[in-house]
């Protein structure tokens, strides 16, 4: 069964998650303004960092896999991200022919 609750005495997971989020945020800032990369590479880099940070929040702070319905919750969120990618990338791709 999927139950996996944490009974730590110190919130290590939250602190590590917070520090990693800060690192990812400032890494995105650095890539955007100081890396000197081409625009396309910058955009790819910062989007990858954003996705990583979103996943981090889901697992470290929201405990998406926790409880007996952890599997359903994880599939639900994965599917919603899939829909988001289809809607966003699909719109940009379609409108690239119009504009």
């Amino acid at each position, binding site marked *: 069964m999927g139950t996996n609750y944490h009974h730590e005495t110190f919130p290590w997971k939250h602190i590590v998650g917070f520090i990693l989020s800060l690192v990812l945020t400032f890494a995105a*800032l650095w890539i955007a303004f100081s890396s000197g990369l081409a625009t396309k590479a910058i955009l790819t880099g910062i989007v990858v960092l954003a996705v990583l940070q979103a996943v981090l929040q889901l697992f470290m*702070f929201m405990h998406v896999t926790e409880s007996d319905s952890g599997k359903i919750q994880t599939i639900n969120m994965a599917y919603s991200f899939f829909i988001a990618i289809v809607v*966003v990338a699909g719109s940009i791709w379609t409108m690239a022919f119009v504009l």
Partner: protein
Amino acid sequence: MAEAAHHYDETMPLEYRTEESRLNILGFWIFLGAEVALFATLFATYLVLFQRTGHGPTTADLFEIKDVMIETLLLLTSSFTCGLAVFEMRRRRLTGLLVWLLVTLLLGAGFITFEVREFIHYVHEGATMQTSAFLSSFFVLVGTHGAHVSLGIGWMTLIIIQLLQRGFTPRTARKVFIVSLYWHFLDVVWIFIFTLVYLTGMVM
């Protein structure tokens, strides 16, 4: 769910103790999935239109990295303190829970204050919802997120009041847990606004 007979279990956190609470939490996850789809449509609209600035200002004219970073760090830290609130709840420390919820509220209020100031600043520069397709979609996307945060502040305030009145019960614990999911989710949305709206707008 069927295989494990979930009766009352001492090792289980308080918010998972009743069948109703477990279903409420699962239902809230499904709601969050729908919220992802909602924000996806707003992001799609924005990303298609953000270079259609007409005679109005462009993203590069408007956005200031310092203000954006302040908002980002306020919300990111509030997501962390909200996590600490649930951590304290699971250790059955009511004072700790209330303190971290209050800190989360204050950080959230700080975020909203900065965002409102940002919007007022834009309007004073002549960048309103009516100025261009870019600004219409910008205010709708970022404004919808801001409205969610404002709603979250009101919701969390009500739950703090219930906690003060009733203390720890399976019901109040479940409410705290669900509002914490909502709050973390708003930070997830903000990560993408930070990246796809502000950073992208300043790079391109």
